[in-house]
């Protein structure tokens, strides 16, 4: 019998008439697709369609094609399902995958349309008028309290104003991606970009490498169930602290970074022995209830001199009540990660079948917190497949204060969404610790690209605001009146608080 029934997904085609025989494809491919025998010989079964070889081929002679192999049509038993069964019959294991849920569930963002001004209220030209995106992340008081300043004016009364909030130049931050799952150069790129853009990056659960200390005012340090890299210094360095309860790609599931990725640097940053597996348990073993979470929130505040503490959860069915509990437990922000959110590694069955869309989660949580009169007590950070500035605008209109982007930032660094992060062989040098691959990202180059992306999206947000006739992002935030749905059922519209187009 052959070793596998699974046929290659792609075909690597080389136009040998144009090929320089330079071997660069061999050198560039992290997956070992190419052998070289006077000319490159591809092994289709290893190809991930990441386009690294295509991009770097000086002769532009490589194309990757979908394997045209026909499967007997069956909408029920798709080719993918057949392959999954074959693979499990071969291995007896859990199928691993990475990045966000690629299944054809509805993408609600693509069923929402933004408003624009015509005649009765004028649009505003963002090239001529200020267009403000500044956002404060954190808890706000119910009301501002003032007292006379003795000179005929007013000043803040004691404790009458906004407590410790983080100022963001634009309502976009980077989502947590740990050092270990991504390379140190990726972390550096994001940290530098965060500083340049006046926003935040997030360590994820892998600790804070000392090379990132200069950017610590733009770093959220995460405390996850594995507690990797957590210590007093770590907590005090971060601009904010985030308790990670769950992740949109794998709600209810822990993490596992295999020992081969725990090199010297990762080991010292995570504070675990070199070569050992880094296991993040599914739950925090000191959080088995909401009151335990409250204790951890306040323990972290005490340990850090009362920095903002946020809580990240995966968007699951009862997300409204969960978020309400988190806010009442004292969190300064709630981070909602939708079911399309990415991961460095997750069981495919979980990634593809667990959780709910972030659009729904934002709408439900925002409304729930308003119904309870506590919306001002915490910011909402929304993530889980924010793919464009349009998604940012729609998420904010639904009620998010800030969005977090992970995949989009990695795409800016070269990621081609080949969904193979868990292999550790990323040809683009992103989700790997192999030195010959990680060096492919120069942090300065990476920072510039990610900075460009944030600036571009911010400019686009300004265009959207101008068309909407408002000149500050807070006038769009939660303003669902500026959204209309197209092709969504009535119940979903009701949950989203959005009217159908035409109403």
């Amino acid at each position, binding site marked *: 019998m052959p070793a596998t029934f699974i046929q290659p997904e792609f075909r690597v085609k080389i136009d040998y008439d144009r090929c320089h025989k330079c071997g660069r494809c061999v050198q560039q491919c992290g997956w070992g697709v190419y052998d070289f025998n006077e000319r490159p010989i591809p092994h289709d079964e290893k190809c991930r369609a990441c386009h690294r070889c295509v991009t770097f081929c000086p002769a532009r002679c490589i194309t990757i094609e979908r394997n045209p192999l026909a499967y007997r049509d069956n909408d029920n038993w798709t080719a993918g399902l057949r392959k999954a069964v074959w693979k499990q019959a071969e291995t007896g294991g859990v199928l691993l995958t990475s990045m966000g849920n690629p299944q054809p569930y509805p993408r609600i963002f693509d069923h929402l349309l933004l408003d624009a001004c015509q005649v009765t209220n004028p649009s505003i030209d963002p090239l001529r008028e200020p267009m403000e995106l500044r956002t*404060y992340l954190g808890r706000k008081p119910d*009301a501002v309290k003032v007292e006379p300043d003795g000179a*005929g004016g007013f000043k*803040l009364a004691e404790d009458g*104003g906004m407590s410790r909030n983080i100022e963001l130049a634009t309502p976009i931050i980077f989502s947590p991606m740990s050092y270990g799952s991504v390379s140190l150069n990726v972390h550096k790129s994001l940290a530098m970009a965060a500083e340049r853009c006046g926003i935040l990056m997030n360590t994820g659960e892998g600790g804070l490498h000392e090379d990132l200390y200069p950017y610590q005012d733009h770093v959220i340090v995460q405390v996850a169930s594995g507690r990797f890299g957590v210590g007093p210094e770590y907590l005090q360095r971060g601009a904010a602290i985030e308790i990670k309860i769950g992740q949109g790609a794998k709600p209810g599931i822990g993490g596992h970074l295999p020992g081969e990725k725990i090199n010297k640097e990762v080991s010292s940053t995570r504070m675990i022995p070199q070569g050992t597996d880094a296991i993040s348990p599914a739950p925090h073993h000191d959080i088995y209830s909401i009151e335990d979470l409250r204790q951890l929130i306040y323990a972290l505040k005490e340990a850090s001199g009362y920095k903002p503490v946020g809580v990240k959860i995966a968007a699951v069915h009862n997300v409204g009540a969960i978020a309400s509990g988190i806010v009442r437990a004292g969190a300064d922000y709630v981070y909602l990660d939708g079911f399309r959110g990415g991961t460095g590694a997750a069981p495919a069955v979980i990634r593809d079948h667990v959780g709910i869309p972030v659009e729904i989660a934002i709408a439900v949580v925002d409304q729930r917190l308003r119904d309870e009169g506590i919306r001002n007590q915490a910011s909402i950070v929304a993530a889980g497949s924010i793919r464009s500035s349009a998604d940012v605008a729609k998420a904010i209109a639904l009620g998010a204060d800030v969005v977090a982007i992970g995949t989009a930032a990695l795409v800016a660094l070269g990621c081609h969404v080949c969904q193979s992060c868990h292999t550790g062989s990323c040809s683009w040098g992103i989700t790997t610790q192999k030195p010959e691959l990680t060096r492919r990202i120069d942090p300065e180059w990476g920072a510039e690209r990610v900075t460009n992306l944030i600036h571009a999206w911010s400019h686009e947000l300004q265009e959207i605001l101008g068309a909407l006739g*408002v000149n500050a992002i807070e*006038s769009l935030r939660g303003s669902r009146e500026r959204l209309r749905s197209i092709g969504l059922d009535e119940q979903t519209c009701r949950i989203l608080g959005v009217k159908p187009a035409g109403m």
Partner: protein
Amino acid sequence: MSATRPRYAEEAPFKIHGGCGLAGICDESGKVMSGEQIILAMAVQRDRGNGLGGGFAGYGIYPEFPDHFAFHLMYHDEHAREQTEALLAEHCVVDLAEPMPTRPVKGVCDAPLLWRYFLKPLPGEIERLELSEEDMVVRLVMTINATVDGAFVASSGKNMGVFKGVGFPEEIGHFYRLEEYEGHTWTGHNRFPTNTPGWWGGAHPFALLDWTIVHNGEISAYGINSRYLEQFGYKCTLGTDTEVAAYLFDLMLRRHGLPLELACTALAAPLWSDIDRMPPEKRELMRSLRAVYGPAMLNGPFAIILGFNGGMVALNDRIKLRPLVAARAGSIVIVASEEAAIRAVAPNPDAVWMPKAGEPTVARVQGMPWPIHGDLHLTPQQVSCAVLGTEDVCDEAVEVTA
């Protein structure tokens, strides 16, 4: 038909868009003037409306009932009246209930049943509900507007009233016999709705307690403004963005106790780049104000006049997308969409100026209470200076007082 309230809800969701004309007159000396003056100011701005809405607010007009809440009601039918009166009787002593005096005017038709009531909370009611008098009245207004089909509270303040309907303002003014009333402060509105049910309650001014708003423009942030207000128990039932402005002033001034100056600042907030350049103490105040009241910011083109017992304040949006001109003639302050309106009332004013974007223009009746925090012990002059903001306007105010 004319009193059937459109609901801002899933079943009949729409928003009334429109441009408008407005005017406000306040005699700071407290001397009263007849309603004819404000009708004059509105009549010359006829072009700014299309006959689908006109209205007025007058202050100091019910000297015989200074301590009663004056409820102006619009009813679709007798059934709505019975239901509403039952609700009123549950919580209040009604010392006078009468049909609103009106006269037939050509161009004004389809009037709803118009009644007014002078009432006080039942003895012990405030204590029973553990609410302030004002909170009780707000709750009552909300209940009537939201639950009684075909009933609408046009105004609910003390010693003031709102007179509005479908028609040009001068027609509405004559219909309500405004020349028979005398007040120290008047505001008027001429409406140009581009999408209207022709509903009397939808005309301006909008009122809650003794706060009234006339508004020209469209608040593009309506969606979040209304959702923000819902958090504090306000129900935005009218489908117009002007309503949110009225409720926001009520929330910030009365319930949060913010000084008028700061409330105006929050509603038409300065740019972050300006805030960053302020001295540290003021910067912190403004940062908090903008961050906390971000959902309350009235973004989009507007000019509004807020009327209250004690004066009025006119405010433009943050980048002055709608006209607003102000003038002073002796002790009288006039604001309007057009200078023509000012000169219709005062042909030779002492000064005419264009208020800057986001900078409030204030008229204050001497000796009247002032909408600031009760705990603040400032002289009205100090507050006036603080509110007016700039030195020269402040000097001018001093001169007038002298």
